[in-house]
């Protein structure tokens, strides 16, 4: 299934990337090649196979309900590109 550049552009939007013309061409070709390779999995009969999402198939790891300090606000903001001392600042949402 050859991937179209338009489809790849749509994936880039979903991934919040904005590819230039060169990168778009390059990644369209690479993705196409890798996806074709991955499609060898189609030959595996897997109808009765339970998917394995994780190496440690644990459920319900519980922790004691103990109060402890979290990061201070200053520490949490210390790496922010833009903040006002209380909140992270971002460009207008709308």
């Amino acid at each position, binding site marked *: 299934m050859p991937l179209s550049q338009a489809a*790849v552009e749509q*994936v*880039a*939007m*979903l*991934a*919040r*990337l*904005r*590819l230039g013309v060169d*990168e778009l061409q*390059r*990644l369209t070709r*690479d*993705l196409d*090649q*890798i*996806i074709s*390779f*991955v499609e*060898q*999995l*189609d030959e*595996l009969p*897997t109808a009765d*196979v*339970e*998917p*394995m*999402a*994780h*190496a*440690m198939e*644990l459920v319900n*790891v519980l*922790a004691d309900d103990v109060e402890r300090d979290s*990061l201070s606000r200053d*520490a*949490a903001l*210390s*790496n*922010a*590109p*833009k903040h006002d001392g209380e909140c*992270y600042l*971002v*460009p*207008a*949402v*709308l």
Partner: protein
Amino acid sequence: MSIPSLSATELVQELRQGHVTAVQATEACLDVIDDNDADVGAFLHVDAAGARQAAEQIDRRRAAGEPLGALAGVPIAVKDVLCTKDQPTTCGSQALARFQPPYDATLIARLRAAGAVLIGKTNMDEFAMGSSTENSGFQVTRNPWDLSRVPGGSSGGSAASVAARQVPWAIGTDTGGSVRQPAAFCGVVGLKPTYGRVSRFGLVAYASSLDQAGPFGRTAADVALLLEAIAGHDPQDSTSAAQPVPPYSQRVAQPLKPLTIGVIRDHFGEGLHEDVEHSVQQAIRDFQSLGAKIVDVRLPHGKYGIAAYYVIAPCEASSNLARYDGVHYGHRTDEAVMQAELASERVAGAGGNAESPLVRMYRRSRTEAFGLEVKRRIMLGTFALSAGYQDRYYLKAQQARRLIRNDYDQAFQQADLLLGPTAPTAAYRLGEKLLDPLSMYLGDLYTVGANLAGIAALSLPCGFTRQGLPIGLQLQGPPFSEENLLRAAHMYQMATDWHARRPSSS
């Protein structure tokens, strides 16, 4: 006595007996780094002041007779993907060029508590995505055995640093082979512990169901000592295992008898370099002379490992890397330039389809900050998880993962440990595979299985190619079999001297 020629275990003894001080050990490492890191390029940051201060403190406490940790005074290098409080932690990415975490990873806190002296942070493929360290957003790392070749990756800086005698040992992380393959390429020992053996708290995530941190050292005994210090349950990582940590360092010298080794026949096929095959076959005979029983095992679904891995890891990565949004930390695009761009698009009539400034900020920030391989994997994962494709790719890969795990479970019915090559070739030349991502991915054929199955595996030196490049032997064991892996590796190292060879550049 030359400090850089000592193994970590020997250095611990010298420090305890007072023949060497922590300051002397630290200065010796800093001297080697000064001398050869311009060529090797293993370090992204060397924290000379912090290391000296930590070493002085150890020496003072030792002089005062205070109790000290098991690694007290021994320098160590750490891959730049583990958070170090108020020190750079870049993950090899321009996105985090100025990031300084407000806390230590649990692994780092354990190293400090054990008295290790953190010398600095090592180079890596950006966000641990790569097999050659060439995807670093900052610099090239060269293989100390041949400076025209890659050190392997993604933990190439840590492996090269140990091989170049800059530090006696180091920490890396392994998602698909990123400790074992650079260990093989650089002629050192590298262990990927069982998933959950070592805490991932503060380890910047690439593929969370596969990531695991592990030690590099020159000997199995060194790796045993380091693993003992970092392993164990961590309440801050709910996927860390509650299993007790055996005293690996005390048991590593006990030979394993009886020992049945399963030779993975599927790992001796097409694509395996003849020099690698020759050395691994010799290692099989060496184990036989040491009393091991050798049997053949098959991992019939192993050939699907690369395909499954390059779906699952990018899917998890595309989700994990969504956090680099230019809001909480990391690179943000120049907002004035961005606003001007949006204004000119409005003039040009994009009208109702215009993107919000927030979305454009995300897109520009991420696109500027990430390198090509990171974009490739985010795109691959986003595609495989997008509506209409999830069952076809992600679910199918998870089913293949189950079949791969079942293969291992069956193989471990027949053998205590599995043996094969770590990588199909020795270190390749810089640039050789950079333009062909798929060919680089195929180099992970023998290593991804252990990550997908969540089992323990290590690589140790077992010879050299005719060109003088190190060759790695991989041993794999069931979950929580680190003790047996290390004991088997130690037996081999008592009978061979491949691990004692050193590159001429160091």
